[in-house]
């Protein structure tokens, strides 16, 4: 199976780069490895024929949000003495993963035991911009409008927050 091997390769890249992301000391390193995570998640979207979401993920996440983070990190001019002193970071990471691991094992075991896959036949149009757009403006019009209000509020809030106090 070709798509299986592609999936395992992408899953490996995603997991390794996200582990690097949470354990890197400098924020620029974690931002750069987070880009790798996001691009491989976008490739995982494309693997199940969600082509429009693939494009959205590349443009908005890897394009807009991550370049904003990189810009802010470089703009803040962060030096080593501005970073928090995380001497026991590795012990913290180890201890927290020991706490979180049983829960994720229980969930994975649950997924493996239960037979959740429907394996519906996907049509030719699935995941195209027409399909997603028709569903968005047909069934999800109210959440769409609410999200536009939320974006406006966030924009105003960001402007007010970053304004220099008089």
């Amino acid at each position, binding site marked *: 199976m070709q798509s299986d091997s592609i999936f395992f390769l992408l899953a490996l890249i995603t997991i390794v780069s996200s582990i690097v992301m949470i354990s890197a000391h400098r924020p620029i390193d*974690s931002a750069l490895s*987070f880009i790798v*995570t996001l691009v491989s998640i976008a490739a995982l979207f494309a693997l199940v024929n969600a082509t429009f979401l693939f494009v959205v993920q590349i443009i908005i996440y890897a394009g807009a949000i991550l370049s904003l983070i990189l810009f802010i990190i470089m703009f803040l001019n962060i030096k080593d003495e*501005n970073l928090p002193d995380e001497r026991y970071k590795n012990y913290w990471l180890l201890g927290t993963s020991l706490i979180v691991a049983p829960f994720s094992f229980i969930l994975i075991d649950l997924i493996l035991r239960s037979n*959740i896959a429907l394996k519906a036949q996907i049509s030719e149009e699935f995941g195209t911009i027409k399909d*997603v757009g028709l569903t968005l403006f047909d069934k999800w019009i109210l959440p769409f409008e609410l999200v536009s209000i939320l974006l406006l509020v966030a924009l105003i809030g960001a402007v007010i927050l970053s304004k220099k106090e008089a």
Partner: protein
Amino acid sequence: MLEKYMILSIILFSIGIVGLISRRNIIVIYMSIELLLNAVNLSLIAISADTADASAQVVSMLIIAITASEAALFMALFVVLFRNKASLDVNLFDILGNKR
């Protein structure tokens, strides 16, 4: 295919939780939150492909829009906090007034 995607999503969510709890750098905490949202998006897309229904893709698109607004607010917050405290340590952010 759905089971594999769900398992990968659970693993990514756990990694994000670990980063969220155990780090003190606020930028890494922000990116861990993004990782949590991405894990949820991944499982939504897998469900959408499994049921051949585009509704889950629409929900995932709304999540991406919410993430964009969250990103704008967080960036403004980083700038303000760094201007006030000259540090990225979240332990210093318990007093947000003008006292140094």
